[in-house]
C-alpha cells in the first residue's frame, strides 16, 4: 500500500524538492531529534543481540507501570467517527501504547494508576446505523479491556472532547458523565459492579467536578455552581451556590480541576482566573486572579487554545496559555505559558514555548513536567517548567491531537 504520510526523517530525504532550505533547516533542528534517539538506542540493542548470535523471539510487550509522568494524548481526528489515544511515557518521550475509541470519546485515568478508560460511541455502519454508547476500562499496562459497560439510551454528550464533562470520583469507583440532550443530566456508572447506575437530572448546568465520592459540582448558565449530593437509592439532592462571575465574564470550556484537593481553577476569555475549593463538599470561592495586566490586555494579550490551563497541586502553580490575539480568537493556539502562584496570584514566570500550542497539562510529581500539545504540528512538547526549557518531544500523534490527560496522582 502506498504511504503518503511519513515521519519527519523521511520528509528530510525528499525535502529538498518540496521545501525551501530555510524550512528544511527548521525541520532538521526540531522534529527529527526526539524520535531519532529512541530508534538509535533500539538499533544498538538489536545489533548487539544479532552479533551475539541470539534469536529474535517475537511477543507482545507490556507497558511499564504508570507513574505521574504517564501522559495521554487524545486525537478526536477532527470529528471523525473513530478516534485514537496515544499513551506516552513522559520520562523517555516514548509512545508506549495506543487505544482506540469511537466518535468524540472522553478519556479518563484513575488517580491511583489502576486503570485507564474512555466513554465512547460507535455506530453499526461506520457513521450511521445503530448507535452504541459504552464505557471501556483498560488495564494500564496491557491496554486489554477490563470492562465494557453499556450506556442505555445513547446518553453521551457529543462535543469536542471536554475533559471535565466526564470524571472519576476521588476513589476511582464511579464514573460521572454529562448528558446534554434531551435534557441536562449526569450519568452515574458503577465501575466496581461494571454497570450503568442512573441518570441524575440537573438544572441548566454543565461540567462535572467530583469533590467527594458522593458529591460533585457543576457550573450553571446563571454563573453559579450546582452542588449535587448523590444519595442512597437514587435520592439525589442539588443546591446552587451564589453567582460567582458576571454574565460577560466568559469562563473557558476547559478549566483545571484536581479531585484530590478539590481545587477548581477557571480562567475567563480575558485571563481573570476564578478559583474555588470544593474539598469540603461546599464551594469556597477564592479571590480571583488577573493573569494579565491592564497594559498587556490593552496590547492584545489574552488566553487561547483548547486546554488553556493546568494546575500543579503540590506547588499550587497555575499554567495558562496566552498570546497576543485579536478579539474572538480565544481558540487560536498560544506561544506562551504564564506560570502563576495560585495562592498569591503573582506571576512566577512566562515561558516562551516556541510552538503553536493548543493544550497544556502538567504531571503531579514533585518536579513536574509541563506538557504542551500542538494540534497543528501533531506533536507533544515536554518542558521543564522551572527552567522553561523544552526537554523532549513526541511527534506523529495522529491527525488532530487535542486533549492531554494526566493522572491526579
Amino acid at each position, binding site marked *: 500500500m502506498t504511504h503518503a504520510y511519513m515521519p519527519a526523517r523521511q520528509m528530510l530525504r525528499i525535502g529538498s524538492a518540496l521545501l525551501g532550505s530555510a524550512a528544511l533547516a527548521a525541520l532538521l533542528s526540531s522534529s527529527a531529534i526526539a524520535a531519532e534517539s529512541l530508534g538509535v538506542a533500539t538499533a544498538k540493542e538489536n545489533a548487539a543481540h544479532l552479533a551475539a548470535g541470539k534469536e529474535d523471539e517475537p511477543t507482545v510487550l507490556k507497558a511499564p507501570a504508570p507513574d505521574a509522568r504517564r501522559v495521554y494524548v487524545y486525537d478526536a*481526528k*477532527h*470529528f*471523525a*467517527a473513530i478516534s485514537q489515544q496515544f499513551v506516552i511515557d513522559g520520562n523517555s518521550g516514548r509512545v508506549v501504547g495506543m487505544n482506540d475509541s469511537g*466518535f*468524540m470519546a472522553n478519556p479518563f485515568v484513575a488517580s491511583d494508576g489502576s486503570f485507564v478508560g474512555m466513554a465512547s*460511541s460507535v*455506530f453499526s455502519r*461506520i*457513521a*450511521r446505523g445503530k*448507535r452504541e454508547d459504552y464505557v471501556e476500562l483498560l488495564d494500564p499496562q496491557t491496554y486489554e479491556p477490563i470492562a465494557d459497560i453499556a450506556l442505555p439510551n*445513547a446518553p453521551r*454528550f*457529543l*462535543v*469536542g472532547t*471536554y475533559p471535565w464533562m466526564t470524571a472519576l470520583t476521588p476513589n476511582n469507583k464511579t464514573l460521572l458523565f454529562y448528558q*446534554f*440532550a*434531551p*435534557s*441536562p443530566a449526569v450519568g452515574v456508572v458503577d465501575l466496581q459492579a461494571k454497570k450503568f447506575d442512573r441518570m441524575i437530572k440537573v*438544572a*441548566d*448546568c*454543565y*461540567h462535572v467536578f467530583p469533590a467527594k465520592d458522593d458529591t460533585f459540582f457543576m*457550573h*450553571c*448558565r*446563571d*454563573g453559579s455552581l450546582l452542588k449535587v449530593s448523590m444519595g442512597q437509592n437514587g435520592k439525589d439532592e442539588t443546591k446552587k451556590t451564589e453567582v460567582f462571575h458576571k*454574565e*460577560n465574564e*466568559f*469562563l*473557558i*470550556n476547559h478549566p483545571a480541576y484536581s479531585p484530590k484537593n478539590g481545587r477548581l481553577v477557571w480562567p475567563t476569555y480575558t485571563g481573570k482566573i476564578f478559583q474555588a475549593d470544593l474539598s469540603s463538599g461546599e464551594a469556597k470561592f477564592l479571590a480571583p486572579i488577573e493573569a494579565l495586566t491592564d497594559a498587556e490586555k490593552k496590547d492584545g494579550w489574552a488566553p*487561547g487554545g483548547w486546554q488553556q490551563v493546568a494546575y500543579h497541586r503540590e506547588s499550587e502553580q497555575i499554567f495558562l496559555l496566552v*498570546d*497576543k*490575539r*485579536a*478579539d*474572538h*480568537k*480565544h*481558540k*487560536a*493556539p498560544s506561544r506562551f505559558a504564564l506560570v502563576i502562584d495560585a495562592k498569591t496570584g503573582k506571576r512566577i514566570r512566562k515561558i516562551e514555548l516556541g510552538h*503553536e500550542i493548543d493544550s497544556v497539562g502538567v504531571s503531579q510529581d514533585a518536579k513536574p513536567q509541563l506538557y504542551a500539545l500542538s494540534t497543528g504540528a501533531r506533536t507533544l512538547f515536554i518542558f521543564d517548567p522551572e527552567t522553561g526549557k523544552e526537554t523532549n518531544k513526541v511527534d506523529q500523534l495522529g491527525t488532530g491531537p487535542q486533549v492531554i490527560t494526566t493522572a491526579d496522582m
Partner: protein
Amino acid sequence: MLGKSQFDDLFEKLSRKVASHTSRRSFISRVGTAVAGAAIVPLLPVDRRGRVSRANAAESAGDPRGKWTPQDHDVQACDYWRHCSIDGNICDCAGGSLTSCPPGTKLASSSWVASCYNPTDKQSYLISYRDCCGGNVSGRCGCLNTEGELPVYRPEFGNDIIWCFGAEDDAMTYHCTISPIVGKAS
C-alpha cells in the same frame, strides 16, 4: 418574520437569567422547530453588537490569532463572511452547497448561531449553522472560526457541540456544516 414582541421574547429566553430556569429540552426543540420550519426566526445574540464581526483593513495573513477579515467572493474559503463562527467543514466542498447538505447526509434541525458581517452590503446577518449528519467527517475545507463564539454553558452560541439534534434517523455523526441566513442581526 416574527413580530417585534415575539422576537424580544425569544431574545430574553436566550439570556442567562431566564434560560437558567428553562428546561434545555424546550430550548432545543424551540430552536429546532423554528429553524426547521418555514418561518425564519432571528435568534438574536444577547450581546450582538459587541460580537458582530467587522471588516478591517488589518490583514491577518500568517497569524492564526489575527483579526477576522471576511470576504464575499469564495464560499469554499474559511474567511467567507458567513462562516464567521463555523467550526468544522464547509459543506460546499463535500457535495453540498452553502445552504444545503450533501447527498447521503441528514439535515439537523438544531443549530448554533452567530452574527456575521457581510462586507458587500455592510450589514450583519444571523447565521444559523446547521450540521449535516450521518456520515463520517468530510475532511474537506476544515475551518475554525469563533466570531462571537461563547462557552458551552451558552450552547446556542457554542460551536464545539455536535449539532445533529433533530436529524432524520437520529444520525448523530458529523459530516459538515452549512451557513444559511435566518435574518438580519440588527
